[in-house]
């Protein structure tokens, strides 16, 4: 056995525990979910094989496609907001005095350290129409009381703000780390050529952050298609279904209606949607390289 071979083997050896975990907890359940999706099953009585009937049913399920549409809307608003604001704060953070940087970083990361359910509950108090802090603030400014989570038009935005607040710090840290990797020589050279401030950012920082940006974009898009816990806590999909996103709808089918087979079919379709979307994203960005 030559050296190279030995090295590969060691690598696989180290990967094995993780791979096993993935197999048992991710791949097997995924295949099983597909298997279940071909059955009519309420979790309590035996499964009945029905072929692709669940898929036929979901193609015509208006509520499901509406939930997919809402997930898209959520993603389209949330992802650019998150990427834009975390990049903005990373640049700001990079330029403030070292003395304050540690403190500021901690403050930004703090929401990320709070359990998602707890942060959702905190925001429910802030959003409360009668005693909530935000409405009291608006009151001082002479703006009438807003319903926020109780309004069909505001609930989704209100939730996006909460999730943004949670994830901003973490993504900012990734950007910040990438910015710090950029050699200062580039900026010095640019300075000699007369490019500073905005131009330096546009022509040096941004292009060099490309891989990081792509990474964050894809991960956040996948994440936003899986958004669930905060919405479950804050609105349960209401009012009047205005925040009923795909995963919540799957949950409803599975654990409220006990349509396990149908819910599994929905999950498979959602997986395909996310898969295709991530693939296109990856293609789109890497083509230019």
């Amino acid at each position: 056995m030559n050296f190279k071979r030995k090295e590969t083997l060691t690598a696989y050896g180290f990967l094995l525990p993780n791979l096993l975990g993935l197999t048992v907890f991710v791949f097997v359940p995924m295949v099983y979910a597909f298997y279940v999706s071909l059955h009519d099953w309420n979790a309590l009585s035996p499964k009945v094989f029905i072929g692709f009937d669940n898929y036929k049913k979901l193609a015509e399920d208006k509520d499901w496609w509406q939930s997919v549409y809402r997930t898209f809307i959520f993603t389209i608003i949330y992802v650019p907001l998150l990427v834009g604001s975390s990049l903005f704060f990373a640049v700001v953070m990079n330029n403030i005095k070292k003395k304050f940087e540690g403190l500021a970083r901690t403050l930004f990361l703090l929401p990320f350290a709070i359990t998602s359910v707890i942060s959702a509950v905190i925001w429910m108090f802030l959003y409360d129409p009668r005693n909530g802090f935000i409405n009291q603030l608006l009151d001082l400014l002479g703006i009438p009381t807003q319903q926020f989570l109780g309004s069909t038009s505001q609930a989704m935005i209100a939730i996006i703000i909460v999730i943004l607040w949670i994830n901003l710090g973490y993504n900012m840290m990734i950007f910040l780390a990438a910015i710090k990797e950029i050699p200062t020589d580039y900026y010095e050279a640019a300075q000699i050529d007369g490019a500073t401030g905005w131009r330096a950012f546009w022509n040096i920082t941004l292009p060099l952050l490309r891989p990081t940006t792509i990474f964050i974009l894809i991960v956040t898009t996948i994440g936003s298609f899986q958004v669930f816990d905060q919405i479950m806590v804050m609105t349960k999909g209401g009012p009047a279904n205005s925040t009923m996103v795909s995963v919540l709808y799957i949950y409803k089918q599975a654990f409220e209606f006990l349509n396990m087979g149908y819910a599994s079919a929905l999950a498979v379709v959602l997986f395909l949607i996310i898969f295709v979307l991530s693939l296109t994203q990856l293609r789109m960005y890497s083509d230019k390289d």
Partner: protein
Amino acid sequence: MKIWKSLLIFSIVLILIVQAGCSSSKSSSGDGDSNGVVTLKFWDFHSEAEKKFFQDLVKEYNTSHKDQVKIEYTAFNQSDYTTTKLPVAFANEEGPDIFMVSPGDFTKYAQSGIMADLNSYFPEGAKEDFLPASLEAVTYQDKVLALPYELELLGLYYNKKMLADKGVEVPKTWDELQAAAKKLTTDKVAGLVLPTDKGPYLNFIWYPFLWQQGGNVLNEDGTKSTFTSPEVVKALDYWGSFFKDGSAPSKLQYGPWDASNIGTGSAAMTILGTWAVPVLENQFKDVEIGLAPIPTPAGGKAATDAGGWKMAVNSKSKNVKEAAKFIMWCFAEDSSRPLKWATEIKFAYSPRQSVIKEGEKIYGEGLRKVFTEEIYDSAIPEPRYGPEVVDAVGEAMQKVMFGKVKGEDAAKEADKKIEEALKKK
């Protein structure tokens, strides 16, 4: 190559171990141990004093049936209990021998045959003691599938001082309730607190408004939707009006079932069940709270829900008989235990006539008197529709509450979904 092979074998063995680890517990649950003691799993969702009540029951039973039965009691939080804990456990055939079921879940479990027939386990004469309607509510295809142990009725609770300050009389009709809620609403106080989130509880509070006019969700034998009837439309529009004019808040800080809404003074009126009485008496002694029947529409008759949990036995349990014996011992034999539950631990009505008679004095105290004298007779058991029907009704309600949709249109759409759900069964 040799290493490759051994690696492969190693990983296969590991997978097998993991698999075995997952399933080995199955064989150990349920059967008795070597000296003939039957072990029963009892899963509950109650908390605090109510949890302690059941814990004490289990302790007492275990002591008196030493060497025969050992019951293991576990309590979960309520929302996990119904949505994930029970279905997942049953799916893996590791469900508890004894569990609690609400009208909202009853049909789901009944259709899957997960509940054992209790008919033969009732002690002599016990069945006759139960209110016929309460047994009817747990009967499915001539089988009694659960044991009712409480009836919770709904009423209109109001803050006496707030009403007096604004010169508002206690509302008796729909119009009066609407006017009162509007008049009592301020920046800090909600005129009338009603549930806002979708779920069985939302429907539970709404049904009386439908029944008062003689309407219903399904026809009598539960085979057809009657959801496009004018009574449904009227009840939907009426319910929606409170949210449209802002006299009912569209988001709540406490749960809608929480007496804190009215106890803390953040609501002037609310519709709540019997369970609120002890809370208001103990935690909010200083606030003067009044109670009245739910206001009725012109030409309608009084109606209220009789909700409440039931105890059931897992039909797949190896010890159905022992489990059934235990729940009968809890609530169908001696009257002291049901009486303690319904009068000391919480306030509810026992489905047993003898127990109510025995507790006559307590049922006439304070707010309880209003329930006993003015509300009890109008009680209709909470319907046990399947989850899809419950969801369709809830969706129609949400639409009139938040969606600027007319009751008529919301009812039509729900009607289609209900018909579809009924066809499936």
